[in-house]
């Protein structure tokens, strides 16, 4: 089943942030601990790590997007044996 990557809260008070940069790109293999994106908060730029293993199937929020609410899906990771077709399910 495709796994959504959510916009993380990087401090207890953060409600939204800017998607500064995608470090991984659509189709890239990712594993737990890989840095996939950079998020700008009101205080700092933080790195987002993958917590699942698979392929970065689709980027839902392009880099440079400002004010992305916490918990918004920003990308989808496809598990082993899944292809882009699984995204339609």
């Amino acid at each position, binding site marked *: 089943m495709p796994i959504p990557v959510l916009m993380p809260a990087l*401090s207890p008070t953060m409600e939204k942030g800017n998607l500064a940069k995608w470090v991984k790109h659509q189709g890239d293999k990712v594993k737990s601990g890989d840095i996939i994106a950079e998020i700008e908060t009101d205080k700092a730029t933080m790195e987002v790590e993958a917590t699942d293993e698979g392929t970065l199937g689709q980027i839902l929020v392009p880099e440079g997007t400002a004010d992305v609410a916490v918990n918004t899906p920003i990308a989808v990771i496809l598990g082993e044996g899944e292809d882009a077709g699984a995204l339609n399910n």
Partner: protein
Amino acid sequence: MAVAKKKPAAPPAEPAKPKLASSVPELGKERELKAFREMLLIRRFEEKAGQMYGMGLIGGFCHLYIGQEAVVVGMQMAIKEGDQVITGYRDHGHMLACGMDPKGVMAELTGRRNGYSKGKGGSMHMFSVARTFYGGHGIVAAQVSLGTGLAFANRYRKNDNVSLTYFGDGAANQGQVYESFNMAELWKLPVVYIVENNRYAMGTSVSRASAQTDFSKRGASFDIPGEQVDGMDVRAVKAAGERAVKWAREGNGPYILEMMTYRYRGHSMSDPAKYRTREEVEKVRTEHDPIEQVRARMLASKRASEEILKAVDAEIRKIVNEAAEFATHDPEPDPAELWTDITR
């Protein structure tokens, strides 16, 4: 007192260097798989905790143990039932290694009623007397005098238990550490002080904050023996742990183990960790990772197959997902609980 000093395993400002396989005793198939499983449980649990923090399910402070897993897992392999463990606030790994229930730990992180402190303590404040885990302490270095007190109680009650007292390289510069060292050596208390040197006290590197960067020598003026250990190699940790615990249990007094380790994440969840380079983190992750070392060794020696290791990973993910599920749906504490478990 004659003190057997060990040669330092690595220079203090550098990451722990891998030793030749021949210089470290092997764990054997079953123990190695057990170490792999326990380190992986901590790793996956902490990754999930980080994710849940990001979803707003965990509030307040949260300090992850990712990268340091071999230290606590190796030390647990060197002790016996009844020995005590106490640490600071980077404590989730210690709880899991002590055998505490991942559901209860995760539910405490999310502040729910079936958490270890009924949802009132959070990340820094969990105990389990049944698992001889004595916290979980929020005040930097406060656990060092408490851990020394546990050892004093062991001596007073004439049991043969040893207190494992963990603290970081930052806490090692606090005054009460040295008052504790003095009393521990004076009364020959059964305590092993474990300095988890992950090279940064919050954002300050050891070399910027410490006059003596070799923490294994910090007991020298009290005649407390110490050694530096490759804290990324679970075999080395266990071997050093056994030496230290034996020393303390036999009535020789305290012992210091400096674990050369590294944390991959920031000090806490809101630390962007700009005081070190991405390359530095990546180098440790690819060359010294405590879990990958064991995985590679087991595969190379055919002590475990890829299938077995994958099955362990799937089992661990299931345990962690169940803990997360439990911690998400368990109710919050009843407001009436606000007035319980407090001293008036």
